[in-house]
C-alpha cells in the first residue's frame, strides 16, 4: 500500500478519535479543568495558609504538577478505553476489522487520540496554574514530553482495558479501584519522602509515583528521585505498554474469532 494512502488512513483514524472527544468537551476536557480550579480554591485560597510549605513551595504550588498528571492519566485512560469499548459495544469495531487498517495504525491512532486529549488537559491545567497561582515551569519542553510519555502509558492501559472489558462496569472498576488509588497514593498530595517505612518503599512499587514525581521535577525542579531515574521507568513502561497493545492487535485479541 503506498505511503500516502497509509498516511491518509492514519489521519482519518486520528480525526475520528479527535471528533469523538471534541464533540463531548463537557464530558471529556472540561471536568478536569473544573477539578483543578476547585483544588486551587480549596488548597490555595481556603486551606493554603494552614498547610506548611513543602521543599520551599506553597502547598498548592507543590500539588499542582501532580494534579496535571492526574488529568493526563485519567483522560488518556478514559479516551482509549471508552473509544474501544464503545466500538465493541456498538460493533463498529467489526467495520474497522474489515477495512484496510493495519494493527499498528489502529494502535497509533487510538493512543494518539488519548495523548492529544490528555496533553490538552495537562497543558491547560498547567496554564491555569501559571496564571492563578504563579506556578513557575522550570522546563516546559520536558514537562510537555513527560505528559506525552504518561499519556502513552495510560492510553495503552485504556486499550488493554477496552479490549478486555465485558461491560461498562469493568472500565469503571479499573478507574475507581486501580487508577484513582494509584494516583492518590502516588504522591500527588505529598512527598513520598515524608512517609514512614514501609510505605515509602511500597510507594516505589507504584508506577504512577514515577509519573507524578517526574512531572513535579520538570515543573518545580524538586522531586523525590533524580529525574533520570523516573524518566527511565516512564520511558521503559511507555515502550512496554505500546508494544503490548500492538501485539494484542496483531493477534486480534478479543477481536478476531
Amino acid at each position: 500500500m503506498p505511503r500516502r494512502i497509509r498516511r491518509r488512513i492514519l489521519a482519518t483514524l486520528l480525526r475520528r478519535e479527535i471528533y469523538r472527544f471534541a464533540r463531548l468537551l463537557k464530558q471529556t476536557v472540561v471536568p478536569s479543568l473544573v477539578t483543578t480550579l476547585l483544588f486551587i480554591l480549596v488548597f490555595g485560597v481556603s486551606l493554603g495558609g494552614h498547610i506548611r510549605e513543602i521543599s520551599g513551595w506553597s502547598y498548592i504550588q507543590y500539588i499542582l504538577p501532580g494534579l496535571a498528571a492526574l488529568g493526563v492519566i485519567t483522560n488518556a485512560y478514559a479516551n482509549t478505553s471508552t473509544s474501544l469499548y464503545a466500538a465493541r459495544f456498538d460493533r463498529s469495531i467489526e467495520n474497522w476489522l474489515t477495512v484496510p487498517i493495519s494493527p499498528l495504525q489502529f494502535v497509533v491512532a487510538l493512543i494518539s487520540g488519548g495523548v492529544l486529549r490528555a496533553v490538552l488537559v495537562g497543558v491547560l491545567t498547567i496554564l491555569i496554574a501559571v496564571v492563578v497561582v504563579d506556578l513557575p515551569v522550570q522546563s516546559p519542553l520536558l514537562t510537555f514530553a513527560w505528559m506525552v510519555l504518561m499519556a502513552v502509558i495510560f492510553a495503552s492501559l485504556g486499550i488493554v482495558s477496552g479490549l478486555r472489558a465485558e461491560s461498562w462496569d469493568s472500565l469503571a472498576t479499573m478507574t475507581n479501584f486501580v487508577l484513582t488509588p494509584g494516583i492518590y497514593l502516588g504522591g500527588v498530595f505529598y512527598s513520598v519522602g515524608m512517609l514512614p517505612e514501609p510505605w515509602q518503599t511500597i510507594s516505589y512499587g507504584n508506577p504512577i509515583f514515577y509519573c507524578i514525581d517526574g512531572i513535579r521535577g520538570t515543573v518545580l525542579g524538586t522531586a523525590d528521585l533524580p529525574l533520570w531515574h523516573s524518566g527511565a521507568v516512564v520511558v521503559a513502561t511507555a515502550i512496554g505498554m505500546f508494544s503490548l497493545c500492538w501485539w494484542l492487535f496483531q493477534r486480534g485479541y478479543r477481536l478476531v474469532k
Partner: protein
Amino acid sequence: MGQAIGIYGLIKKFNGLTAVNDVSLEIPEGEFFGLLGPNGAGKTTLISCLVGLARPTDGRVEIDGVDVSQNPLRTKPCIGFVPQEVNVEYFFPIDRILEFQGGYFGLPIRASRARAEALLRQFGLWERRDVQYFRLSGGMKRRLMIVRALMGEPRVLILDEPTAGVDVAQRRELWDLLRQLRAQGVTILLTTHYIDEAEALCDRVGIIDRGQIVELDAPRTLIHRYCSRRVVIDLAHPVAPEALRDIPGTWEVTQNGYRLLARPPAGDHRLGELTEALMRQLMCEPAQRICDLQIEGGDLEEVFVQVTGRGIDAAAHP
C-alpha cells in the same frame, strides 16, 4: 476471467464445534453468487473468514488470487462488506460515518465527502445525512450499510442477509440496487435464507447445510435437476383420457375429467413441447375451453428440500 473469490478446503471450528467443514468454492469476477442456507448453517462464519472477522482453522481463502490471511491489507481494499447487523458508530451522524469510511480506504477528505454525497443521493438518504443511524427507518438502515460498503469502490461486495427484517417493498428496492451494482461489474456474494431472493438475483447458488456446501449451480439448473414440474390445466368440459394418448410424458386426469395434470418425459425438464401438444389436443374439441393454467413445482425451495431432506425453516430450527 479470474476468480474474484477462491475458497479452498476451508474449515472453521469454534470450541470444538465445526461451523464450516471443508468448503471449496470459486466465484469468478462479475458473478452474483448466493449462499443459501438456514440460520446456523455456517454462512456468516464463512464470510467472516473472507472479510477478516474470523481466522480459518484450516484451508485457504483468496480475494483476486491473494491469500486473505497472509495479505489482509491487499485484499481488504477490494472488499465492501454489508454485515447482517448494523454496526456503525452509535452517536455519529451518518455523513460523518461515511466520510471516515472513505478515509479508511485512503480517500482524501474532499473526495470522501463527494463520494458520500453522491451515494447518499443515489440511495435516497441525502435528506437524512445529519442524523444518527438509529433515527433511520429499517430500510434506510439497510441502505446505509450498503452505502458504507460502497465507499471504498469495492470490486467484491459481500452481503450477509442484507434483507433480513425488512418489508417486501424495501426488499424489492434493495434487489434493484444490487442488480445495478452487478451491472456495473461488481462481483457480489450474498448470503440469504430467503429462497426467492437467491432465485431472483443470483447467477449461481451454493446450498450450505451444517457447514458444508451440499449443492452448487445456477438456480435454473438446480431446479431442473431436482424438481419435478407439472402443468395443471382446469377445463370447462371434461376430457376423455383416451384423447391424450399421444401426449409426450406422463399425465393424469382428475376431478371427473375437469383437471388435467401432465409432466414432461423423464430427462426432459422443458414444459414447452408438452404444453404445445396439450393445447393442440385440447383445442380439437370445439366446445372445450381452458379455465385456468398453472405450472407447479420447480423452485429453489423444492431443491433445498430435495438436497437436505428438510425445509429451510425446519433446517433453521432442527
